[in-house]
């Protein structure tokens, strides 16, 4: 998936690095120092429907359906996350205990058109 450039109108991944110091949370989140808060944005015209950038076969299936049926489907295709990974956090909880946990699906790695 392309990373969004300012003028990219099509579906892409917009990257933001969040430093926990900027949130004022470095006193209780011990590790890591920050994380990638990425999100998906951009347009999904019909010819891109089902093209998650990594599973072309799904894209070709949708494409042939589009051709077989009317070329302008009623539904719209949206730019959504297609690959995400967990974030491992080490933090102090309300009782001052040190907790290590993996938060699932925290970081968007790829975007695609539904």
């Amino acid at each position: 998936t392309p990373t969004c450039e300012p003028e990219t109108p099509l579906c892409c991944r917009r990257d933001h690095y969040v430093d926990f110091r900027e949130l004022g949370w470095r006193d209780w989140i011990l590790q890591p120092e920050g994380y990638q808060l990425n999100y998906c944005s951009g347009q999904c015209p019909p010819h891109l429907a089902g093209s998650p950038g990594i599973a072309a076969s799904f894209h070709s299936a949708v494409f042939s359906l589009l051709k077989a049926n009317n070329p302008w489907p009623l539904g719209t295709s949206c730019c959504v996350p297609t690959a995400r990974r967990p974030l491992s956090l080490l933090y102090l909880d309300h009782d001052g205990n040190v907790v290590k946990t993996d938060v699932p699906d925290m970081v968007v790695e790829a975007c695609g058109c539904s």
Partner: protein
Amino acid sequence: QGAGSVCPSCGGPTLAPQAERALVLELAKQQILEGLHLTSRPRITHPPPQAALTRALRRLQPGSVAPVNGEEVISFATITEPSTSACSSVLTFHLSTAQSRHLYHARLWLRVLPTFPGTLSLRTFRWNPGRRRRESRTLLAEHQMTTPGWHALTLPSSGLRGEASAVLKLQVDCRLPGGNATAAPQRLVDTAGDERPFLELKIWPKGPGAGRTRRR
């Protein structure tokens, strides 16, 4: 709003960079709190000493793997009541009720001082608050050790799990060779400062399906 530029997703006006950054930071706070099942960020009034934290984190490093979405917890002994003898210490730990209810692996890390000859026997009891004095404690485990320094005492997690109170009180009694506990010249277990004991726990994942999986 950016001058004249259009949001590529919805066609509306885009946000000015500062406004977008402020929105991203707010989103990050929500996402982290939701991911940790917290309603608000913890207010840390007594953070553990950095040296104690560093040593404990070394225990959590590679090799120790919590289950998917599970947790590993290090809880430092916060209150050590004035003990009756050099050979007995009472340690108090504060856990959240979820941690106390779903723990499945527990080790008590403590540092034995180099002041005893031969083999030292340590017995760990759990105090059951609220009962009559006679039944006030349950023996959890007994460990023998021949060297001073840090030791990890594996405790039965079933003996530590609790439904009601999230305050866990343990008593560590030591006995010297020949069983004479009173002969101990001075303290045998370090229970204060940066060398204070801590519990290393592994907790089952939270969330609706966790309990069912474990019962099955």
